[in-house]
């Protein structure tokens, strides 16, 4: 049983036994890992504070019989600003949950790691589209890129008002959407933003200021599409919505 070093970002953690924690992280070179942080819940532990989501850290990991054990955690970025208000905490939670749901354990995804790093930096800067950009790019990088310009049903270009179908793979002509009774209307503004997000560089996301109605319709489409692709239900978007109603 060996030792290995990782650079990683904490996605989530849950309690294990009396004082330990199971920490799910996305590492740069080994993909998503579930690690044991021994004693992390004890008040005097130096691990607990260092392994809060979404901390980026370096550490030494010891291979165990069932679970690997993390130690010597060195914080690279505690992302304190992402924990400084409710809105940023909410957007961060959605991003972390998507990263967790999209990836299988121990499949290296250095590009997704880089994407998450960039998305957290954008969220820290208060850029409103950071979460949506992350969702769109994550789907693209993990082989679930939705169609946004050519209708998957007939192969022709889609212009103007269209429909969105999770089963057909994205944006379709309203007239071609009859195959999916659950297809929903997709506004041209939402399609334009989504088309842009799928290939945008982080520097371009920084300059985006779309109307909040456009943002929320793209969020609805992307989260629904992600849930269909990953065959799961995202929990955080509903909680974040509930928190914003004050």
């Amino acid at each position, binding site marked *: 049983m060996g030792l290995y070093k990782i650079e990683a970002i904490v996605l989530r953690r849950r309690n294990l036994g009396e004082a330990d924690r199971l920490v799910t992280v996305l590492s740069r070179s080994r993909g998503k890992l579930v690690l044991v942080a021994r004693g992390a819940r004890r008040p005097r532990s130096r691990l607990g504070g*260092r392994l809060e989501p979404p*901390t980026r850290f370096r550490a030494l990991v010891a291979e165990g019989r069932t679970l690997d054990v993390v130690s010597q955690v060195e914080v690279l970025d505690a992302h304190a600003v992402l924990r400084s208000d*409710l809105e940023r905490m909410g957007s961060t939670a959605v991003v972390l*949950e998507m990263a967790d749901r999209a990836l299988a354990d121990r499949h290296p995804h250095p590009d997704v790691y880089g994407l998450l790093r960039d998305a957290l930096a954008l969220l820290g800067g208060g850029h409103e589209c950071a979460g949506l950009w992350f969702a769109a790019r994550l789907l693209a990088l993990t082989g679930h890129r939705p169609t946004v310009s050519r209708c998957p049903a007939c192969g022709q270009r889609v212009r103007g008002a269209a429909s969105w179908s999770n089963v057909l793979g994205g944006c379709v002509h309203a007239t071609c959407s009859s195959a999916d009774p659950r297809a929903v209307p997709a506004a041209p503004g939402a399609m334009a933003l989504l088309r842009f997000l799928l290939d945008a560089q982080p520097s371009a996301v920084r300059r985006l200021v779309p109307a909040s109605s456009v943002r929320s319709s793209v969020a609805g489409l992307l989260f629904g599409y992600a849930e269909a692709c990953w065959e799961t239900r995202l*929990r955080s978007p509903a*909680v974040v919505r509930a928190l914003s109603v004050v």
Partner: protein
Amino acid sequence: MDYPVPLARLIDELSKMPTVGPKTAQRMAFYVMRLTTEEAQSLADAILGVKAGMRYCSVCFGITDTDPCAICSNPARSGAVLCVVEDPRDVIALERTREFRGRYHVLGGAISPLDGVGPDDLKIAELLSRVREGGVTEVIVATNPRVEGEATAFYLARLLKPLGVRVTRIAHGLPVGGDLEYADEVTLARALEGRRDL
């Protein structure tokens, strides 16, 4: 070889308990088997007694054997200061300090988007109606110093401040009796942030 049915049943029940694995459950079951009838009866009575006698206080949602609980019904405790905690065990921990003379409100958890726990899953509406009833001047938010506890604190502050009460957060910092050099950088940063004039 399988265990005889009565023993297997006990092992099965014990291993449902938190932090009890199959090995520990077996050891506990053998311990129970060696008890006298009176001792076994006393253990069984204690388990049933908890079920029959313990409940949640209808005012603060702490655990109690009377309703309202001893703290809520104690006239010597100030109803002007409410201390909000996540778990009934936090009330017991805070009571051990013998420092706090106000009353409590137990939320039953903390907001956790990743676990799908939102405001409606916690006793937040009940907290608001306690404050709206009047007489409360300060709410101390003593949720855990981790992401979920912080999110809950921000959310409560947003709801409570418009009601005209003072909302405070317990301090975070270094463990008493500890050494600076052994503290993690996140805790140290928070301790610096929460510094006070001397």
